[in-house]
């Protein structure tokens, strides 16, 4: 298994972007995750791995309060981003989500033009005063998402007409167009072929310079390839969290070892 050599370069005491303490989530009485505490560093790719139903996506959706859209969902504990409690009464989830972008499992571009897809976020947040500024933002986001060269001649074509991998990169461009500080990715490659997956992985490694990336993945190879930190979830608990190469080579918990060697999960 390939071990990411970059991990050693990240200082142990990197600036913590997100700190979660004793996070507990229930859906209408049944517990989804319990007592999760984790620190997520800035300019790092953090991977959440674990078997299906272990709560990694639930925890990810807590970080931008997308769980608010589910009526029966209750979140307790504390999650801070830049030292601010995001579940504080005075926090508007709309502002939070502008700061914490998200890419979903299945590519979900709006059935509008490619340009409008990317421009939507900046428009509603008033990031561009003129059409020219908006054009710059759109081009910049598409370039960062490594999609510009493929779509620059057909920005007015509908976004749903792109291939699956292009759609997902469009969704990434859309998410980074609002200049978030954190980018959450919920199994972004699960619907893609290996070539598109490789493109996205390359992209994630690239955008890490500017963002704090948290990625949920089912592919342990992917976690090992692109992340510096890995968290292993099992049955709603955070079992192990540490540097990716340490988790994959010398896991401290027997459950982690069983999972990454394919005996459970």
């Amino acid at each position: 298994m390939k071990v990411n050599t970059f991990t050693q370069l990240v200082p142990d005491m990197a600036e913590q972007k997100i700190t979660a303490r004793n996070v507990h989530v229930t859906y209408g009485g049944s517990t989804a995750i319990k007592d999760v505490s984790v620190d997520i560093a800035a300019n790092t790719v953090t991977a959440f791995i674990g078997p299906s139903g272990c709560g990694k996506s639930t925890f990810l959706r807590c970080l931008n309060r997308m769980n608010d859209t589910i009526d029966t969902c209750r979140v307790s504990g504390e999650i801070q981003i830049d030292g601010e409690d995001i579940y504080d009464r005075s926090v508007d989830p709309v502002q939070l989500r502008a700061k914490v972008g998200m890419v979903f499992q299945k590519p979900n571009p709006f059935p509008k033009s490619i340009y409008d897809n990317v421009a939507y976020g900046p428009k509603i947040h008033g990031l561009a005063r003129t059409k020219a500024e908006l054009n710059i933002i759109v081009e910049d986001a598409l370039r960062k998402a490594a999609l510009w060269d493929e779509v620059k001649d057909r920005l007015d074509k509908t976004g749903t007409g792109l291939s699956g991998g292009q759609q997902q990169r469009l969704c990434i461009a859309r998410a980074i167009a609002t200049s978030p500080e954190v980018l959450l990715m919920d199994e972004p490659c699960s619907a893609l072929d290996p070539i598109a997956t490789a493109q996205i992985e390359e992209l994630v490694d690239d955008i890490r310079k500017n963002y704090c990336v948290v990625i949920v993945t089912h592919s342990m190879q992917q976690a090992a390839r692109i992340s510096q930190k890995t968290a292993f979830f099992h049955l709603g608990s955070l079992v192990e969290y540490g540097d990716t190469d340490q988790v994959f080579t010398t896991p401290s918990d027997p459950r982690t070892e069983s999972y990454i060697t394919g005996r459970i999960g």
Partner: protein
Amino acid sequence: MSIQSKSLLVQDERTKRRNAAEKRFHAYGLGAIGVAALALVLLLTSVVSNGASSFRQTYITLEISLPADTLDKDGQRDHAAMASVSTFGYAPLLRDALQGRIAELDITTALPDKDVADMISKEAAATLRNHVLANRHLVGGVVTLELLADGRIDGYFKGRVTLESAALDGNTSPEALQIAQALADVGVIDTRFNWRFLTAPDASDQRPEAAGLGVAILGSLYMMLVVLVLALPIGVAASIYLEEFAPKNRMSDLIEVNISNLAAVPSIVYGILGLAIFINFLGLRQSSPLVGGLVLTLMTLPTIIIATRAALKAVPPSIRDAALALGATKMQSVFHHVLPLAAPGILTGTIIGLAQALGETAPLLLIGMVAFVRDYPAAYSESAGLFGEAATALPVQVFNWTQRADPGFAERASGAIITLLVFLAVMNTVAVLLRRRFERRW
């Protein structure tokens, strides 16, 4: 015995039975479609064969002399003075004109004067009077007018009345029909497209040839406007709230169930409700398109709400998630993304609701729209307000005409049904076109 041991080239018993069942179901399906198609064909044939003739009408062209001494005794050509001469003053002029024409053509007949006069519609005297009052300088001269023929004469040229049936009919006679035929041969009487059927108001029991759908079409149009303006925004707003914003609890479940129940309430109940609330309690004018529109709005709302909610439900949740995750508010995600995608479904639901309302009769009977209305209702008037003047509606007009004795009205009723069906077909076509136009894939 295992399945593998048998040859694939021979169908076993079980497979044969399954294939037979499939073929039977195929036949049932075809049969069901056949019955439905047959019913449609029968309906259309019956309606068209009975009603198509109402779009043609028989006219008599006459040169009528207008003697000044009877029509305008003062000689001032003053409107008020001339208006004192009623249609009874004009009827003899028509009879004389027709008799003169018959004599000119050397048709000998033993028909009494009264029966000759009866060949012209009773409506004709009023037509002539209105024409003369509007063009007073014509008095003392001769005017050429196309006048409606009597319903029986009209029926003769459409094949409804025959010489045999006329012999048994107190309102006409074989001699009158023979004269009419002779007049038709020289072009005095002819049958052509009947615009009056679509524009004229209703007429009394004795003159089916003059009856038209003008007031009914106007009334239906006004009501559809009221329904569209009220039911669309209210229905869509209610659906969006229920589907996207309302908390899912016992209360919203209760509302949901009751909206579905409302869709199944018999329409006449809405009529009683409208009578009690809009007319007796609020004091709105009876027979008015406003009240009719309000009642039909109540009736259409559940249809629109159910269709809109279904359309909103069909928008994939991933679109909402995408918008919310970008930091859009709930309202922005609904109005920027969900609603445009649901628009085709909403439009279709609305037009189906409108079409339903257009064909509704029962509630309108209860709020007095069944009245005989001769005057075109104005959209707005000082005394009656917006859509307050008495009107009737297309389906009510059909109901009305089918109750009248003169066979001429049976033809008119079928003609009105054709008109109603054309309106419905146009609305459904618009629904399909809008759907095609706005439909987008995701």
